[in-house]
């Protein structure tokens, strides 16, 4: 469903992504991991065109992301994205956050959008907070709202950019639980994360990145049992030590 072929990206003269190639099939869950600065976030932001790239090709359901003729807003509306810092709109209530793009992009009526928002809030366990503002929610609650906001667009795939790394430890699981539920329902997902427990549990494949390259792209059990590259071994030994 998502094909990334020989992707390279520069900031001026500085090469940030080098020849990245991978594919994500319908219903697959891919975990992207690697040391900080390995440009995992940059890579997934290329998938919905938030980051431009200079070389290679990305196609989502055969629609080329880099093509100037592609209607990017239309494409993005079909791909949900969840950010490290939640990025809920602070001047809108939780319900308004979830309704905005439904109304403006999908042209749903207000009643329909609100109904969808409430159903999703029910699902992520936050229906009691529907009228609150993001500033009055905990980080874990905000991130669950952000997931609901993305799901409200009925996406064909979801991108998660370090969804739990800004959270206090006790809130990580409430967010991961929602993500595991999604994965089990068959949502296509690309997840940038350091949560190796989550990766073992639901990922079909692990993509390991270092310095803007995809160093390893292997089925989850293979990756954890016997990473081929020295760098992946080193990375795993560092984060799995405790």
């Amino acid at each position: 469903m998502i094909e990334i072929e020989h992707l390279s990206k520069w900031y001026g003269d500085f090469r940030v992504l080098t020849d990245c190639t991978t594919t994500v099939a319908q219903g697959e869950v891919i975990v992207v991991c690697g040391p900080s600065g390995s440009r995992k976030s940059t890579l997934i932001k290329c998938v919905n065109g938030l980051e431009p790239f200079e070389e290679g090709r990305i196609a989502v359901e055969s629609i080329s992301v880099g093509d100037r003729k592609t209607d990017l807003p239309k494409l993005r509306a079909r791909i949900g994205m969840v950010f490290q810092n939640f990025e809920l709109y602070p001047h809108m209530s939780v319900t308004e956050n979830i309704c905005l793009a439904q109304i403006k992009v999908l042209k749903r009526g207000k009643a329909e959008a609100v109904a969808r928002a409430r159903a999703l809030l029910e699902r992520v366990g936050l229906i009691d907070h529907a009228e609150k503002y993001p500033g009055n929610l905990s980080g874990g609650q905000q991130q669950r709202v952000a997931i609901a906001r993305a799901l409200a667009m009925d996406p064909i795939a979801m991108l998660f950019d370090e969804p739990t790394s800004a959270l206090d430890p006790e809130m990580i699981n409430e967010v991961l639980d929602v993500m595991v539920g999604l994965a089990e329902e068959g949502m296509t997902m690309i997840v940038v994360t350091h949560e190796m427990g989550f990766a073992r549990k639901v990922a079909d494949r692990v993509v390991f990145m270092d310095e803007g390259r995809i160093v390893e792209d292997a089925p989850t059990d293979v990756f954890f049992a016997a990473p081929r590259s020295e760098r992946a071994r080193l990375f795993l030994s560092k984060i799995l030590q405790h």
Partner: protein
Amino acid sequence: MGGFDLAYLTAALPLLWEGMQVTLLLTLFGVVGGLALGAMLAVLRLSRARLLATAAAGYVTFFRSIPILLGIFWFYFLVPIWLGHSIDGFYAALVGFVLFEAAYFCEIIRAGIQSVRRGQILAGLASGLSYRQTMRAIVLPQALRNMLPVLLTQSINLFKGTSLVYIVGVRDFLTAADVIGARDNRIVEMYGIAALVYFVICFAASLLARRLQRRYAI
């Protein structure tokens, strides 16, 4: 000089009120014109077209580096020489206020827009909103909340600053008070009243600014 004479003040009120209307009009037009021009400048400053951004930045730097009184002198004394006819002091001052305030408003608006995290724009775009929709629904409402108190403070400054028109013979509130005081030999009372009126209005406005800030802070 004797005690404070309420009857005298009542007699002076109509002239003072006329002056206050001029002051309020100058402030209103100055703020509206300054905001409109300032918003355009801010858009240019933030645009990716480097030439436009530099030109707008140059404008801001230039007008912020010159006393506003000098600007009023230009439009009152110099521009008429080129035009060949005189300019009414009110309009000369107003043009000066708009041009100078625009520089300040530009910076306030720019800072307001830049105070909104880039992630907010990404979130809007990622949800399928166009750049324009993202600006209108997500960035500008937050920017406006962030800059509201500063905009009000700047407007209060202009309200006081309009008293510069004294120099070019426009009968604003302060000028009116001065003229009456000199005419009736009541300078102390008139300057006292003028100070009191400016204080009450500015203090009330700054209280309002603080309340708005608390109410809309995010």
